[in-house]
C-alpha cells in the first residue's frame, strides 16, 4: 500500500560517475522542503490562532464582567431609590405634620392609606415617643403601647435619626422590614415614625431583571442572611452558601467557586444607608457556552487548515521533487546519449585517419599488381622473375601494414564493454598515438613517450583509458600549431597510484577558463562545432576508474594534464542499473 504512494525518487541511489550522476540528493531536498515549508506556514498559523483565542476569550470574559457590573450598578440604584423614596416619604410626613397631629389615630390612618395608594408596600405606621413607647399605631395588629426602648433598632434610630432594619418575619410570618425616622420636638425632645414595609416590591424588582447565564439576583444583609428569595442560593432568611463579600463603596465583580467547584461570576454592591448587599451571581460555564462553541469551531477550523496545509505541502513537494528527479533523469539520459555521440565522433575521427592510412598500402598493392601485370604482358618471364617475386613480397608487406591498421582499430573498438583487466599503460598510450601518428608526421609534431621502469601493469578498463587518452591527445593536437611537441610521461605516484602527464606546447588555456574546463557544455569552440563535453567526459571517465585529473596551463606556453590512476580499480556498478534500498 505504502509502496504505491512512494515517489520514484525515494529509493534512487546514486553511484554513477561525475558527469552521468544526478546532481541532487532528492530525499534531502524533499525532507528539507517539507520541514521548512511546514514550519513557515504552520507555526505562524498556530501562533495567530492562539493569540486570537486568548484575545477573544479575554474580551468575552471582560465583556461578561462589564455587563454584570453594569447590571449590579443599575439594580443598586433602583433599590437605593426604592429605600430613599420610602424614607423621604416618612421624612415628609414628620416634617409636614406636628407631633400632635400625628398622634391622632384617624389622621395616621389616612396617611397609611395615602402611602399605600401612592407608594405601595406599607403595612403599618406607628408613632413612638422618646421613651420607646408606641403612642399611636395604625395597622393590622394591636401594637399600641408596646415598649421598644430596649430594642437595638430604637437605640440606633435615636443615635442616627434614621433606621432601616434587616428583613424579618415578625408576628405576621411574612418577610418585611422596618423603616424608622426620628423627628425632633422642642428642646431635646423627639419622637419616632416607624413604618413596616413588605419586601414584595424588592422581590419584584429583582425578579424582573433579565439575567443571563442562569443568573440569580438577591439581597443579603451584612451577616450573609438572604433578604429576598434566591433561585439557587437559599430561601428568605436562610444563610447563603457564599461568603459575605468584602465592603466596597463601588460595584464589584469577582470570580468565585461554589462548594461543587462550579465557577461563578459574582457581582455585588453595598446599598448605602441600609444593611443590604445586592448580589448578582451567574454561572460562568453557562455564560461562556457560546464561546465554547466558537472555540470548538476555531480549533476545528485550525485542525482542518493544518491538515490541508500539510497535505498540500506533501503533495506539492513530492510533485516538485519528482519533477526535478524526472528532469534530472532526462538530463542524465541525454548526457549518456551525448557521451555516446562523443564516442562515435571520436570513432569517426579515427575512421578518417584509418581510411587515409589504409589508402597508402592499398595504392602500393594496386601499383604492384599493375606492375606484375605489366611485367607479364611486356617483358620476358625469366628476366622479370626476380621483380615479380619482389613485387609480390611488397604486396604481402602492404597487406601486413593494412592488417596492422585494422587490428589496431579493432583492438580499439573491442574494449567498449566495462571490464577491468591488467593493462600496460604505455602500450595503451602508444596504441592511441598510433592513430595520430600520420597527422603528427605531416604536421611535424614531435611525440615523446617516456615511462618509468617501475610501472607495473594496472588493473583498469582498457576502453575507457583509450577514450581518455584519445580525447586528451586530440585536444593537444588541436591546441598545437605545426611543429609542436607532445610529451607523455608515466611515473609512479606513491604506493597505489600511477601518474600520467600529457604536456603540449600549444596555445594554453586562460586562467579564467581553467576552473571550468571540466564542466559539461563549457566550450570556447562552440562556433566551430565543439560540444564542450570532451573534457567533462574525460573527467567522468577518469573518476569512474577511481582516478583524478587536474590541469595546469600557461598561455602561449602550453597545457599540462595530470591523470592520477589507481593501480587497482574497483569495478563500479553502472548508475542506471543499481537501485539499492536504503543505501
Amino acid at each position, binding site marked *: 500500500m505504502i509502496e504505491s504512494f512512494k515517489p520514484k525518487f525515494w529509493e534512487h541511489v546514486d553511484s554513477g560517475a561525475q558527469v552521468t550522476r544526478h546532481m541532487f540528493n532528492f530525499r534531502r531536498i524533499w525532507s528539507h522542503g517539507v520541514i521548512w515549508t511546514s514550519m513557515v506556514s504552520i507555526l505562524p498559523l498556530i501562533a495567530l490562532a492562539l493569540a486570537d483565542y486568548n484575545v477573544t476569550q479575554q474580551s468575552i470574559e471582560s465583556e461578561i464582567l462589564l455587563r454584570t457590573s453594569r447590571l449590579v450598578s443599575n439594580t443598586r440604584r433602583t433599590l437605593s431609590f426604592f429605600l430613599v423614596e420610602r424614607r423621604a416619604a416618612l421624612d415628609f410626613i414628620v416634617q409636614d405634620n406636628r407631633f400632635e397631629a400625628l398622634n391622632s389615630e384617624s389622621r395616621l390612618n389616612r396617611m397609611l392609606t395615602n402611602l399605600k395608594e401612592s407608594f405601595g408596600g406599607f403595612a403599618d405606621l406607628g408613632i413612638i415617643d422618646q421613651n420607646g413607647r408606641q403612642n399611636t399605631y395604625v395597622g393590622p395588629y394591636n401594637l399600641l403601647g408596646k415598649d421598644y426602648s430596649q430594642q437595638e433598632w430604637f437605640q440606633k434610630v435615636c443615635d442616627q435619626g434614621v433606621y432601616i432594619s434587616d428583613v424579618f418575619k415578625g408576628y405576621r410570618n411574612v418577610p418585611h422590614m422596618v423603616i424608622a425616622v426620628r423627628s425632633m420636638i422642642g428642646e431635646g425632645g423627639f419622637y419616632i415614625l416607624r413604618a413596616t414595609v413588605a419586601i414584595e416590591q424588592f422581590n419584584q424588582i429583582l425578579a424582573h431583571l433579565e439575567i443571563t447565564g442562569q443568573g440569580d439576583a438577591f439581597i443579603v444583609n451584612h451577616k450573609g442572611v438572604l433578604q429576598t428569595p434566591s433561585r439557587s442560593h437559599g430561601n428568605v432568611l436562610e444563610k447563603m452558601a457564599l461568603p459575605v463579600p468584602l465592603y466596597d463603596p463601588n460595584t464589584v465583580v469577582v470570580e468565585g467557586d461554589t462548594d461543587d467547584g462550579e465557577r461563578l461570576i459574582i457581582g455585588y454592591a453595598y446599598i448605602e444607608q441600609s444593611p443590604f448587599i445586592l448580589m448578582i451571581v451567574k454561572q460562568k460555564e453557562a455564560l461562556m457556552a457560546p464561546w465554547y462553541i466558537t472555540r470548538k469551531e476555531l480549533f476545528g477550523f485550525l485542525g482542518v487548515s493544518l491538515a490541508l496545509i500539510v497535505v498540500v505541502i506533501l503533495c506539492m513537494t513530492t510533485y516538485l521533487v519528482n519533477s526535478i528527479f524526472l528532469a534530472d533523469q532526462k538530463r542524465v539520459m541525454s548526457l549518456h546519449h551525448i557521451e555516446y555521440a562523443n564516442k562515435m565522433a571520436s570513432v569517426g575521427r579515427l575512421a578518417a585517419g584509418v581510411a587515409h592510412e589504409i589508402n597508402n598500402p592499398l595504392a*602500393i598493392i594496386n601499383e604492384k599488381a599493375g606492375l606484375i601485370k605489366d611485367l607479364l604482358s*611486356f617483358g620476358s618471364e625469366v628476366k622479370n622473375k626476380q621483380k615479380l617475386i619482389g613485387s609480390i613480397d611488397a604486396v604481402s608487406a602492404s597487406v601486413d601494414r593494412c592488417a596492422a591498421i585494422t587490428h589496431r582499430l579493432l583492438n580499439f573498438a573491442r574494449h567498449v564493454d566495462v571490464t577491468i583487466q591488467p593493462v600496460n599503460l604505455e602500450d595503451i598510450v602508444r596504441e592511441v598515438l598510433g592513430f595520430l601518428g600520420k597527422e603528427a608526421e605531416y604536421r611535424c609534431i614531435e611525440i615523446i613517450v617516456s615511462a618509468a621502469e617501475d610501472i607495473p601493469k594496472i588493473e583498469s578498463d582498457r576502453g575507457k583509458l583509450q577514450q581518455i587518452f584519445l580525447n586528451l591527445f586530440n585536444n593537444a593536437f588541436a591546441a598545437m600549431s605545426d611543429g609542436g611537441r607532445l610529451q607523455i610521461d608515466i611515473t609512479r605516484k606513491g604506493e597505489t597510484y600511477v601518474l600520467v602527464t600529457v604536456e603540449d606546447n600549444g596555445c594554453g588555456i586562460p586562467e579564467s577558463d581553467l576552473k571550468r574546463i571540466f564542466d559539461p557544455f563549457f566550450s570556447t569552440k562552440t562556433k566551430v562545432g565543439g560540444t564542450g563535453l570532451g573534457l567533462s567526459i574525460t573527467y567522468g571517465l577518469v573518476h569512474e576508474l577511481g582516478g583524478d585529473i587536474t590541469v595546469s596551463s600557461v598561455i602561449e606556453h602550453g597545457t599540462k594534464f595530470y591523470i592520477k590512476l589507481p593501480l587497482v580499480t574497483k569495478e563500479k556498478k553502472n548508475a542506471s542499473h543499481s537501485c539499492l534500498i536504503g543505501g
Partner: protein
Amino acid sequence: MRPIRVLLVDDELELVSTIAERLDLRGFEAEWETSVDKTMQRTDICTFDIAILDIKMPKISGLALKEKLEAKCPHMKFIFLTGHGSGADFEKGAAAAGEMFYLVKPIHIDVLVDKIQKALSDQGGKV
C-alpha cells in the same frame, strides 16, 4: 621525339618506385624521390616536363613543393596525388592544378598516363 620526363615525389618508396617503373614500361622517362629536400637538391630538376606530387608529405606539403619547383622551372606541369579525400585538401589541390589534375589514390595507371598527356598538351597546372 624525346621521351617525356616525369618526376614522382611521394614519401612512400614502394609506391613511387613502382609507378615510375610502370611509366618507364609505357615509354616515359620516370624518376622518383621520397623527400622534398632531395628533390630540390637535384641539379637536373628542370629537365623534367611534368612532376607528380603527393599532397601530404612530412614537413612540407606537395603544394609548397609545387611553388618551389614552379619558381625554379616555370615550364613544368603538375599532377597531384592524395591518399586523403578531405574537402579542404581537394579544394587546395584543385585550385593549384585544376580539378582535372588532382587524383585520389589508389590510381589507375592508364588514367595517370592519360592525365600526363593531357597536362602536357593542355595548360595543365597553369590555371
